[in-house]
Every structure is written in structure tokens, then in C-alpha cells.
């Protein structure tokens, strides 16, 4: 019974559509959540959604790369990166990112809708040339708008850690876009993830220098020992 | 350098040197009559010059070589300029003699060194004189140049000798526009010789002086030379006006009779002009210094008008 459902592409497509909605919801959360721990959770969920989308897509398409991508995403984005950021977050001893720049959460949600519209309009202009199913087109639109929303997060939130999550959201958007528009060679996906990991590593380490509330960091510090790793 | 020119050099220069003081006296005389006085004799200027030339020269200790050289230089310059304006006859001059522009700038040399002389002794009067002279001569310069350019326009040459050769012999001016130029030339004479309303050559009130202020430090021989220079300058300028407006009588060929006629004619015409200048001087009051530019504008207007008429004719 279940297997028949699973074998039915139309059903799978519906599920993927639902997942798209969830993705957008996570993005909205990322834009407005003030608590860093829950931000991380939202990100992990978003990544998980990516994994699920990849798996369902595999079921429709049968492209093995998708499974590999799903596995890779699961390991890196759902587990490792949130874990690492969480570790750093504890070190910095801040748990909230309260202030917003330029856009308050409500405004940014409205802007996000505009972004989705823009992504739709934009892509419809170009993908009309390609033969593409509606689902794939929608995936591309969601991917692109997720990328843009991630950028929205970067500039509207104050703390570096939040910005990093914004960046990760962007990356998820690109991943989504990639899954639906083209099937890139897997090696490239791996390299991207490695790149992402290093980047997150670096930014979060640097975030210690900037975001930390510890008194001694407020002045110009000559010798933060973050590089030699021997202290806080 | 041909014989004709050499002879011309001697005769013309000699003649101008000889008659120049006469016209000075004549103007004084006319002015005196106009004022109801009898005035000095016509020979008075000659006598003055003789007296001065025998007197010793007094120099200020502040003064320099400029003061010593200038009188000689200036007279020499004016004598050179006199070669440009044939009065006795029109010779076969070497190229360049008679060039209007050179002539204008010879006058400029005289001005330049007179002005330096004024500054040389360090007297405030001298400085004032040279300052005013240079300023006003700068303002009159466009007028002079335009007037002379108008001459060149009408007569199509830049050489006085050639110009006069064209005008000579005719009894009326070559072109009606020349009459207009003559007005400008008349004003130029007034300005260049420092006469009322521009300057008062007879003044002894320092604040109104221009030319006199600059030669305040000159004395004896040098003063004589300077006075002579002024006289020569006046004669030359008058000769230009005469040869343009009423040119008859000037001979182009060298004959004894012609020479005598032309000298006589010139003497007559120049005396009349001198009388006219004297009358003009008597009938007008000296202007304020800064009113002069507008006076000059009048001359400028006439000259420019001439050219315009020639241009659009």
C-alpha cells in the first residue's frame, strides 16, 4: 500500500510541494527568530527538508546522485554544521540576536514574498525555452528565492552567527536550485560541501572575535588566541 | 642707403629740429592771446633752450645711470622717428624707415624711459607722473593703433612714406574717411604732447602734473634735451596730421624749389595747426584724471568708425 503510494509519482510530487512550503516556513523562521539555538534548529530542519526532497526526487527520477547528495547533506548540514555552531555559540555566551537592520521581521516577510514573485517572473522568462515540468520549475523558483531570502537574513540580522546561518540558507537555496535544474557531477557537490564546511568553520571562529560579549574583547585585542586554539 | 635718403636725413631732421621750438612758442602765444595777455616772444623757446644748455646738470644722489642716459636716448629716438615722417620731401628710403608700427613704438621708447626717469630719483612726484603717464598711455594705445590702422586700411600701406606719396599732390584728402581719422589724430596729438585737457604743460601745481612731474629732477643740459624732445615729438605728430588731411605741397622729387615750397607750405600749415591747438587748449578745461579714458574713447570711436566705413563700403 505504502509502496504503491511511493511508486506513484504524482503523490511524490505532492509531497515535494508540501516540503517546499515547509522550506519556505523555515526560511521565514530564520528571518524572524531571535533565539540562536532555535535558529540552529530551524536550519537543521531546513537541511533535513533538503534531504527529504532529494530522496523523494530520487524516487521520481531515479538519479543515484540524489541519494548521495541526500546522504552528504544529512551528514554535513543536518548534523555536523549545527553541532559545530552550537559549540561555538556556547563559547561566545550569547544566545540571542535581538536587533534587526533595515528590515523588521514583518517587513522582511513581505519582502520575501516579493522575492518569490521576482524569482518566479525572472525564471519564467528564461526557462520558457527549456522543457521542464512544473514541479522542477517550482523547485527552481523556491531555490532562487531561498537564496535571496538567505541574503536578506545576512543583512538584516546583527550577529555574525546569524549571518552565517543566513549564508547557509543561501547555500541551501542554491542546492535546491541545483537539484531541480541540473544534475551536477557528484564530485562537485562534495567539493562545495567541503568549501562550505571550511567557510562555516572560519566565520564562526571569527565570530568569537566579533560577537562575543566578554568584557576583554571590547577593546582592541592584539593577541586573541583563537588561531593557536589554546584559549577563548 | 642712397644719396637721396642721406640728404633727406639731414634736411628733414634739421628742419624739424629747427622749427619745433617755434610751434611750442606759437601755441603759448595763441594761448596768451586767448587769455588776453601778450605772451612771450616767438623766439622765447629758442632762448630758453640756449640758456638751459649752458647750465650745469644737477643729479639727485639717489638717481642712477637711467637719468643720465635718458635725455640723449629720447632725443635720438625722436630724431629717428622724425625720419619716418617726411616733411621736406619724400625720399627713397631703405625698407623699414617709415613703418607706422616702428614709429608708434619709437614713441613708446620715449615714454618708457621718461617714465623710468620719473621713478629714478625716488621722488613721489616723479613716481606719480610715471604712473599716470604709463596708465593713460596704455589706455590711449588702442586708439592710436586703431587710428594708424585706419590710415593703413584707407591707404593700403603701412609706410608713412608711401602713404604720403599717395596723398601728396592731391588737394583734397584721398578718401573722405581720412577726415574722420584726422579727428582722432588731433586728439592723439593733444594726448601725446600732454596738453589740456589731458595734462597742462604750463602747470606748477604738482598734483595735477604728469609730464612735468617726471622731469622735475631734470636740469641744465638734460632738461634742454628733454624740452627739445617734446617739441620734436609735437612737430612730428602735427606733420602726420597735416600730411594726411591737407597733404598738398609735399614733394616727392628732390628739387631745390620743391623743397623750399614744401618747407614753406609745411611751416604755414603747421603754424595754423599750432594756432588751432592753442585755441583748443584755451577753450577747454583740464579734465579729471579718471575722466580721460572716456575722452580717449571718443578718439577710439572715430578711428573705429573710419575702419568700419571702409570695411562696409
Amino acid at each position: 500500500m505504502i509502496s504503491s503510494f511511493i511508486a506513484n509519482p504524482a503523490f511524490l510530487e505532492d509531497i515535494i510541494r508540501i516540503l517546499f512550503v515547509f522550506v519556505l516556513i523555515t526560511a521565514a523562521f530564520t528571518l524572524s527568530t531571535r533565539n540562536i539555538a532555535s535558529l540552529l534548529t530551524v536550519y537543521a530542519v531546513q537541511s533535513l527538508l533538503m534531504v527529504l526532497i532529494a530522496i523523494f526526487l530520487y524516487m521520481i527520477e531515479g538519479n543515484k546522485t540524489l541519494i548521495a547528495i541526500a546522504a552528504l547533506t544529512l551528514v554535513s548540514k543536518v548534523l555536523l554544521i549545527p553541532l559545530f555552531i552550537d559549540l561555538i555559540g556556547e563559547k561566545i555566551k550569547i544566545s540571542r540576536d535581538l536587533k534587526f537592520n533595515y528590515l523588521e521581521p514583518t517587513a522582511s516577510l513581505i519582502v520575501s514574498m516579493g522575492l518569490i514573485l521576482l524569482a518566479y517572473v525572472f525564471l519564467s522568462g528564461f526557462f520558457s525555452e527549456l522543457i521542464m515540468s512544473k514541479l522542477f520549475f517550482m523547485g527552481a523558483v523556491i531555490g532562487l528565492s531561498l537564496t535571496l531570502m538567505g541574503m536578506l537574513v545576512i543583512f538584516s540580522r546583527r550577529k555574525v552567527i546569524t549571518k552565517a546561518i543566513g549564508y547557509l540558507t543561501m547555500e541551501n537555496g542554491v542546492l535546491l536550485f541545483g537539484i531541480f535544474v541540473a544534475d551536477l557531477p557528484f564530485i562537485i557537490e562534495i567539493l562545495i560541501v567541503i568549501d562550505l564546511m571550511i567557510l562555516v568553520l572560519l566565520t564562526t571562529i571569527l565570530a568569537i572575535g566579533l560577537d562575543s560579549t566578554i568584557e576583554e574583547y571590547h577593546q582592541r585585542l592584539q593577541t586573541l588566541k583563537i588561531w593557536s586554539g589554546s584559549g577563548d | 642707403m642712397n644719396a637721396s635718403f642721406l640728404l633727406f636725413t639731414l634736411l628733414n631732421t634739421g628742419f624739424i629740429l629747427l622749427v619745433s621750438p617755434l610751434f611750442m612758442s606759437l601755441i603759448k602765444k595763441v594761448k596768451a592771446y586767448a587769455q588776453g595777455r601778450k605772451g612771450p616772444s616767438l623766439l622765447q623757446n629758442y632762448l630758453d633752450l640756449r640758456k638751459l644748455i649752458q647750465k650745469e646738470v644737477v643729479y639727485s644722489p639717489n638717481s642712477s645711470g637711467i637719468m643720465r642716459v635718458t635725455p640723449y636716448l629720447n632725443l635720438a629716438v625722436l630724431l629717428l622717428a622724425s625720419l619716418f615722417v617726411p616733411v621736406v620731401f619724400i625720399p627713397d628710403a631703405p625698407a623699414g624707415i617709415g613703418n607706422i608700427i616702428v614709429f608708434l613704438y619709437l614713441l613708446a621708447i620715449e615714454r618708457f624711459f621718461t617714465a623710468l626717469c620719473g621713478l629714478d630719483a625716488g621722488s613721489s612726484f616723479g613716481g606719480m607722473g610715471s604712473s599716470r603717464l604709463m596708465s593713460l598711455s596704455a589706455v590711449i594705445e588702442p586708439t592710436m593703433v586703431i587710428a594708424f590702422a585706419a590710415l593703413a586700411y584707407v591707404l593700403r600701406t603701412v609706410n608713412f612714406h608711401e602713404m604720403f606719396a599717395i596723398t601728396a599732390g592731391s588737394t583734397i584728402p584721398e578718401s573722405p574717411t581720412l577726415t574722420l581719422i584726422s579727428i582722432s589724430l588731433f586728439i592723439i596729438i593733444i594726448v601725446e604732447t600732454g596738453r589740456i585737457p589731458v595734462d597742462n604743460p604750463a602747470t606748477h601745481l604738482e598734483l595735477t602734473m604728469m609730464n612735468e612731474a617726471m622731469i622735475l629732477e631734470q636740469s641744465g643740459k638734460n632738461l634742454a634735451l628733454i624740452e627739445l624732445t617734446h617739441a620734436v615729438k609735437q612737430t612730428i605728430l602735427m606733420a602726420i596730421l597735416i600730411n594726411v588731411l591737407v597733404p598738398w605741397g609735399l614733394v616727392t622729387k628732390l628739387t631745390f624749389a620743391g623743397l623750399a615750397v614744401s618747407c614753406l607750405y609745411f611751416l604755414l600749415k603747421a603754424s595754423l595747426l599750432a594756432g588751432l591747438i592753442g585755441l583748443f587748449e584755451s577753450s577747454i578745461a583740464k579734465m579729471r584724471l579718471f575722466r580721460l579714458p572716456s575722452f580717449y574713447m571718443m578718439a577710439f570711436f572715430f578711428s573705429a568708425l573710419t575702419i568700419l566705413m571702409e570695411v562696409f563700403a
Partner: protein
Amino acid sequence: MIILSYLTVGAIALALITLSKSHRTMNAFFILHTLAFLAIGIYVLLTTSIPIFETGSEYFYVDHLSLYEVLIAALLFFLASVYANGYVESLVQAQELHRNNLKIFYMIFSLLLTTVTLAFFSDNLALFWIFAELTTIFSAALVAILSAKENIDAAIKYIFIASGAMLFSFIGLIFLYTLSGEVLGSGTLNWTLLAKNAALLSPKMLTASFVFLFIGFAAKSGIFPFHTWLPDAHSKAPSAVSAILSGVLLNIGIYGILRIYAIVRQTQAEPIVSQFLLGFGLLTVAVAVLNMLLQKNLKMLIAFSSVEHMGILLLGIGIGTPLALFWTLFYILAHSLTKASLFFSAGILHRQYESNLIQDIKDVFSLQPIAGWGFVISSFAIVGMPPFPIFSAKFFILLEAFGLSKSLVFAVLLLLVIASAAFARFLIEAFTQSSKDEGTDGVEALLPYTVRSGMKFPILSIIFMILALGVFFPEPLEKLLNTIVYELGYL
């Protein structure tokens, strides 16, 4: 083979640096590393017939353009490594750099060189993208290595703006991949393949893909409005690193744009893309020079000057004629060298005055004659005065641009006047200040900073090189550049 040897050398150098204990050995190994890269590059250029594909699956491709860029990079890294010997030691002594961080510094530096080299040699655009990303990360780490808050801040800006924009590039790549898939059956991101089949690609999609790719590469090379990270990062980084940032890393973005433009150029999308590049070039130059004019910070001035020059390079690419490309390529070399010399000199001045601000610089010529004159001469060179190479490159780029638009050339010329005025203003104001003017308010006279060994050599050698290049254009270089122009399909 080539890539493999580069990788091997890179790995060995990294290992040696990791193992070495003293600063001197680390530096020596790093110098050797750069020299080895330089040597391999020259060897390949002289002996191997290129272009060739590397490592089977056509991920890497060595042609004259990439080799040219790699040689420039290796040369600059070499100079920077020599300079770093004394400079970094000074930083350590001034306690701006912790001694424990030395090893990390050299390791990342060495890694950066390897990554840059690999990026230039990547034929697969996605691979290029990843290596370019890695260079961002490594260089940002080098900016942040000083651990001062402002450095970290600059590094963070660098990472977020450059990497964020690069994500859009990736979207562009996906476009390109799909596009090529439509035409070739299976998608590819291999530049060689794309360039060969460029004529088949749909111009409209290609334009869209170009625009996205441009966003990332523009951010990488400091094109307005993505340039904002550049002045901060370049001015806060240690000068040895600044020179690399300006001289090498900016070239990566330009290189990317150039490669993509070479594809676009063969299609109908060329006019619009060309105008697009010219527009951005002009805007970049304008914004950069206006930022330079009232600049109070020495290294910021140099950094904005980099932005300006990137704008000119963009113009040079956008013109799209072979001659323009030829001189643009030459311009890249000239700019990299000159900029490095400026940063090296500025580094010495920064050591001397502990500040980059205009009001702190005093008695330059008596305290630091070499750096002072080096800076002055390099400034002449960077504003395009003869007999330095930028002059002729500028002339010919503008000459080619004249065919497209007269007003563009005129605008650029006026903007360049502002750029020169900015340099002149800064130099005249800063370099003529005397400590004697201050009077007797107890300011003790500055002691001259002892320039360490190896810090003068790069400055002097660069000045010598640019002088030589400006006066005499070597024939082999001409041949090399002509080959590049040919290989990019311009002729």
C-alpha cells in the same frame, strides 16, 4: 603531469612548513615553494606545447592564459614571501601577530598559493568556482590572522560579501550547465567544450547565466557595487598579504569574467554583455576615484585604486577587440606588480608610523627614503604616468574604447584625472609633513624603523621591472599575449 607536480610541490611545501620550528625556516620553505611554482611555470611555458588537458577527466586545462596568470601569481607570491621575512618578524615583535600564529600564517599562505594556481588551471568552471571560494576563505584567514577586532571585521565582510555573491555565480553555473545540456545532450561546465560550442548556446539564457556568474566574479574582483569589502580587507591585512590580495586575488575574478566573456563573445549576446561590462567598468572607476579623492588612509587609498583599476580592466574586456584584450592582459601584469610595490612600501611606512592615517606620516624621506621614494614612484606608475607600463596599456585600451563610445573615453579620462589628483593630494599632504612643524609640545622625534632584510628587495626589484616593462616591451611577452588572444578565440 603539470598539475600533479604543482600539487606535489604544494603538499611538500605545506608539510615542510608544518614541520619547521623557526620563523626563518618557515619563510625559507615558503620562498622555495613560490620559487618552485615559478620554475614549473616557466619550464612549462618554455618546453611543453600547450594548451593541453590535464588529469584525464578534463578537469584541468593548461593554456597560455592560465599559465600567464599563474606566473604572475607565483611571481607576486615570491616577492611577498621575501618581503614577509622581515615584515612578519616585525609584526611579531610589535606583538601584532602572535608567535604561535606564525605557522598558521605560513601554512595558509602556502595553501593559498596552491589554491590560486589550481583555480587558474581549472577547466571545469565549477572547479574554478570552488577554488576561487577557497582562495576567499584562505585569504580572509590571512586578513584575520592579526586577530585585532578590525581585522576580523574586515575578514568577515570579505567572506560574506565575496562568498555570498559567489553563490549567485553558482546559480549562473547551473544555468550554464543546463544550457549546455540542452545543446550538447549532456551538460558540461568545461570551458573548452563550452567555448567550442558557444555559437550553439541560446543567447538569452547565456546572458542570464553571464549576469549571475558576473555577480560572483565581480565581488571577487571588487567591481562596484560588490567592491565594498575590498578597501577594508586590503587595508587591514598585513601588507605582504595586501599585495597578494590586490595583485593576485582580484585577478581571479577578472580571469573568470574574461573566460566567460570569451564564450559569450561568440554569440549574439555579445553586444548587451559588452555594454553591461562597460557600464559596470565605468561605474566602478567613478565610485573608486571619488572614494579616493578625500581619502585619509594610505592603504585605503591603494585599495580603492585597485577597485579603479579593476574597473578599467572590465572596460578592457568589455570592448571586446583583440587589441583591447591584448592590452588588458598586459594591464593585469602591470597593475599587479605596481600594486604590490605600493603595498610593500606602505607596509614599511606602517611599521614606521604604526598608522596609515595621513596626519601621522611625517618626515618620510628622512626616515624611510626607500619606502618613500618607492611609494612615490609606484604612485606615478599606478596613475598611468610614463615610462611605466600602465601608461601604454591605458592608452591602447582607451583607443579601442573610442571606437565604441567617445563620451565613455572622455568620462574615463576625467575620472582618471581625479584618481591622479587623489594620489597627488595624498602624497603632497602626507609626505611633506615635518615633525618640526609641531613645535615644542613634547612630541619626541620618531626613531627610524629599521627596515629588515628582504623588505627593500621586492620594492626595488618591482620598480626595476615596471620601468623595464614600460620602456621595453619584451618580444616573448608580446608573443605570449598574442597567443592568449588567439587561444581565447579573438583572432
